[in-house]
């Protein structure tokens, strides 16, 4: 432990330094978001399937992901899974670290996204689909033009929450040596001979705080714009 006096004046300097790693966090989050939404959509579709085995697999996957801490999931997939593949004769050491991490994050958030989509589709009255079909729309058209725009409005608030959760989740990337905001902060601490830990972590906290605060505001605004003129359910 360092006994250096606390200097709040150093925090802005550290904020700027840490922000150098912002693009990495952004790429991680956006890529994981896109893949996570894709996996989530597949899961949500699977949970509406008429075939029981498909439904069971989807719900099993969701329960599995919900029961495992993200940290353990990262270790399991990043360190454990390549060992398994090696024993099966596949070498995974050439896989890019960042790409691998993106997939792990996507898997970690996919369960939450699938639940979000599922519940928002269930919130749309069945009569909407029936009416669309009755005027001669195909199933795809009914989904794309009638159900999806309504379900999107229902999902928007929890979409914002899920994205904030994802951004917070990316802070775990440092455990496998990814230099995102968290990783950068830890590098700065090491370079400074571990004397300014509190200042650096406070700077890091300020960055995440600002990011999530802005996102929350943006989301609230979007919800207001998107649901303008709609009948409120409450």
């Amino acid at each position, binding site marked *: 432990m360092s006994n250096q006096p606390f200097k709040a004046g150093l925090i802005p300097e550290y904020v700027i330094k840490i922000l150098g790693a912002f693009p990495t966090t952004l790429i991680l989050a956006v890529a994981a978001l896109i893949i996570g939404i894709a996996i989530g959509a597949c899961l949500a579709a699977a949970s509406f399937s008429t075939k029981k085995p498909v439904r069971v697999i989807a719900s099993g996957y969701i329960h599995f992901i919900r029961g495992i*801490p993200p*940290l353990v999931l990262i270790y399991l997939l990043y360190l*454990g899974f390549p060992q398994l593949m090696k024993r099966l004769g596949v070498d995974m050491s050439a896989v890019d670290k960042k790409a691998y991490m993106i997939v792990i994050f996507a898997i970690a958030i996919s369960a939450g996204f699938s639940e979000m989509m599922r519940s928002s589709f269930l919130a749309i009255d069945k009569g909407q689909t029936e009416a669309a079909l009755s005027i001669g729309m195909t199933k795809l058209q009914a989904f794309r033009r009638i159900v999806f725009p309504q379900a999107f409005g229902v999902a928007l608030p929890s979409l914002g929450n899920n994205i904030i959760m994802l951004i917070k989740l990316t802070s775990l990337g440092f455990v496998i040596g990814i230099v995102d905001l968290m990783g950068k902060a830890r590098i700065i601490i090491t370079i400074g001979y571990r004397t300014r830990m509190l200042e650096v972590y406070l700077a890091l906290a300020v960055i995440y705080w600002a990011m999530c605060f802005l996102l929350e505001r943006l989301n609230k605004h979007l919800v207001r714009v998107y649901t303008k003129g709609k009948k409120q359910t409450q």
Partner: protein
Amino acid sequence: MNLKYIIKSFPQILSYLPVTLMLAFVSEVFALVVGLVFSVLKRKRIPVVSQILAVCISYFRAVPTLVQLFVAFYAIPRVLTSLFPDSAVIANIPNVVYAILTLGLNHASYASEIFRAAFDSVDAGQTEAAYSLNMTRWQALRHIILPQAFVVALPNLTSLFLGLIQETSLASIVGVREITMTGIQLADIGYDFLESYIMLTLIYEVLSFIIGRAMRLIESRVGSFRRGGLEKPKSRFLRLREKQADAV
């Protein structure tokens, strides 16, 4: 699979399960109490207090738990030393205490939102009716409002608690010796990553399964008054009839 390793290290990992459970339960109780206080304070709208509270809740919700753990880990000892410069106890405070404080306050800010929503869901007429029966404020809260709000809050509190169990794994990064840290260290000795992390996964999955089930049982018990008493289990014949009716 390295069976010898599994047989040797599984009991070792399991021996730290009480630490994980202690972390989770103590933080949860702390979170529930503080969360309730938070939500009550928020309702009162006391000028300065409610603004400070809003900032606190925003901090605990927006910053990753891991960063909060680090901040608490380095900030609290400094604050304490500046308050009591000649105390020898501060340096000996175990990391678990900081972890519990952080996880507890973190979840308290989520719990306060859940409580707020739950209180809002109880109709104002209930309080009025209780007052009209000459109940005191405290009586109305304890006998009329809380039981109803609790039922509404319970499912959300369950998922919050399941999340808390997972977040205890983050405490391993700030040096709390619980199952994740034990698993990581045992794996590092002989590079038995696969076995070690499968064991950890299994422990966490079983833990959340059992607790999820237990909570659902409690939910259906506590919420039974809403349906007018405990439901009798339906006979197979009845269930089949309902299914057929649904199909038609």
